[in-house]
């Protein structure tokens, strides 16, 4: 683990009201994009803010390139943070916003100009130097905010739900662009989100958090295919939960095979058949709860409310 870019060791940060995070251990490789995923209040932002220096921690350590940074003020840390919104300074033009940090680092004027122009090209927003934040859309503002952070060449880029205030289409687009820039520049990113789809699409690894602790850490596919707990199974993707003989059986809708009649692993009756575009969602009543599956439009024509259905599970989990 000596060559980890960012390492969080046994970190604990508790607020007065008892919320916070306990015994957090995370290791991020150089050039990796890691996502902290969880519902609000699970402590994901607490960890991010601790890395950025905006939260002091009670115990443990945070290392970047093997050096502890916990005693550094935010302005001294080799990290850059992008917040959910209101990142840009409203009274400064885009150029002034981007130049501010470079000036503090005493970068010569000509180099500042060159680097800002290049960075605006990179985020596909050339020519907006003279605009003020209030004259741009939310998506454009976040782009500039990310550009402003990248300009300072941080060791680790911290993103706190940067796209959550944007509408779905723009969010999708920003996601793709961020991933591209991140891989092109090979930067280390810690990304916080409550959107599991965003986490799956964007990350090399996802850390699923629950009430201040890490529930599971792994590649998106690994977390989806092998959720270690009921909580993760429930939070990531869709899942049917069936209470059978005191145990919980969890089955993803795509792992439910259906045929008309009886004699399957589980039998039930059609409850609803809902057309959702290129696929159909069918739910079935069983003795152990409702089961959901996805079928094609063609198949769906054979099923009507109340029909008996036999189900087989190609894959299931037990908790």
């Amino acid at each position, binding site marked *: 683990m000596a060559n980890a870019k960012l390492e969080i060791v046994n970190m604990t940060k508790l607020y007065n009201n008892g919320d916070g995070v306990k015994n957090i251990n995370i290791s991020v490789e150089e050039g990796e994009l890691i996502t902290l995923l969880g519902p609000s209040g699970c402590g994901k932002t607490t960890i991010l803010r601790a890395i*950025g220096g*905006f939260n002091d921690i009670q115990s443990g350590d945070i290392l970047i390139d093997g050096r502890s940074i916990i005693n550094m*003020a*935010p*302005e*001294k840390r080799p*990290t*850059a*943070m*992008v*917040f*959910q*919104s*209101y*990142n*840009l*300074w*409203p*009274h*400064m*033009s885009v150029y002034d916003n981007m130049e*501010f*940090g470079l000036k*503090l*680092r005493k970068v010569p004027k000509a180099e500042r100009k060159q680097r800002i122009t290049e960075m605006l090209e990179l985020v596909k927003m050339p020519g907006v130097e003279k605009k*003020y*934040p*209030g*004259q741009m859309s939310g998506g454009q503002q976040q782009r500039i*905010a990310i550009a*402003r*952070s990248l300009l*300072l060449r941080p060791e680790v880029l911290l993103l706190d739900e940067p796209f959550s205030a944007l509408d779905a289409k723009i969010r999708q687009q920003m996601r793709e662009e961020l991933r591209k820039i991140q891989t092109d520049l090979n930067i280390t990113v810690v990304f916080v989100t409550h959107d599991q789809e965003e986490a799956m699409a964007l990350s090399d690894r996802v850390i699923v958090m629950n009430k201040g602790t890490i529930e599971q850490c792994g590649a998106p596919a690994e977390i989806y295919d092998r959720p270690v707990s009921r909580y993760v199974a429930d939070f990531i993707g869709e899942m049917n939960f069936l209470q059978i003989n005191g145990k919980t059986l969890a089955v993803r809708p795509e792992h439910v095979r259906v045929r008309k009649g009886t004699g399957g692993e589980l039998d039930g009756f059609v409850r609803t058949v809902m057309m959702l575009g290129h696929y159909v969602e069918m739910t079935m009543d069983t003795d152990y709860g409702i089961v959901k599956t996805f079928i094609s439009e063609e198949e769906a024509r054979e099923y009507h409310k109340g029909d008996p259905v036999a189900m087989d599970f190609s894959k299931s989990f037990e908790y």
Partner: protein
Amino acid sequence: MVKNKSKWKSAMLIVGFLAPALIVALGIVIYPIINTIIKSFQDPSTGAFTLENYSYLFTNKLARAHIWYTIWVTVLTVVLAIFFSYLLALYLRFSNSRIASVIRSLYLLPRFVPVLVAVYALKMVLSDSGLINRLSMLLPESWALHNFKPGLLYNAKGIILANLWFNIPFATMIISAALSGISSSIVESAQDVGAGKIRIFFKMILPLSISDVMIAATFVFMSNVSSFTTPYLIGANHPMMLGVYLRKQFSSRKYELAAAVSCLIFLFSSISAIVYIYTNLKEKAWERD
């Protein structure tokens, strides 16, 4: 033609709705102002046009002292009130301590105490035989502070002190509202790129709140340049604030001179009103669409 008629009709309707307010304003604001302006240019005995009243104000040694004293006390009140209010507002905005939350719920209290009550209370505490003096009497006689006399009443110090008591809460309220409009992420992202506290103040917080600070300052200026109760009760006999001077002229039946003093106070107030309107109307580059 039809269109013109309906336009004319709606214009009349607007005038009709505004008329009551307009008549009241004309009667109790505009008319007295015009009356006062005319009177200030009249000779007391003949009623003829004269500049005598104003030239008296600007040449008479005593009157000039009153004018300078008023400006001096008011400006000092504004500067000190804004300085302390800004500090207090910054503290309230950026501190999460218990003390801050207590102050947050208490700082407006002085605004709810009537001026007269507050001034008399201040007198009780500050006067040379008041509470401070009584407490100092409890000290051993050999101490220098025994029988301490604050010497704060019947001079500019007392007036300014009382002014601060009323104006700091008010200015803090306005500046606090401006500061609470500055999102934490604006400050934190400045910190993040490497700015220290002082730079954050001068580069972020000050430019984002300066127009509200100016507005607070003009309000403090306007209410203090013409103040009467406070200087009347705890000011000196000489020099005196223009409000007190005005009353003195009035009670000696020098109505024309009193009118000239009124106009002068009005002029001072309008200067700060112009500043206020200018700050309010000035569209900043970053607010333009």
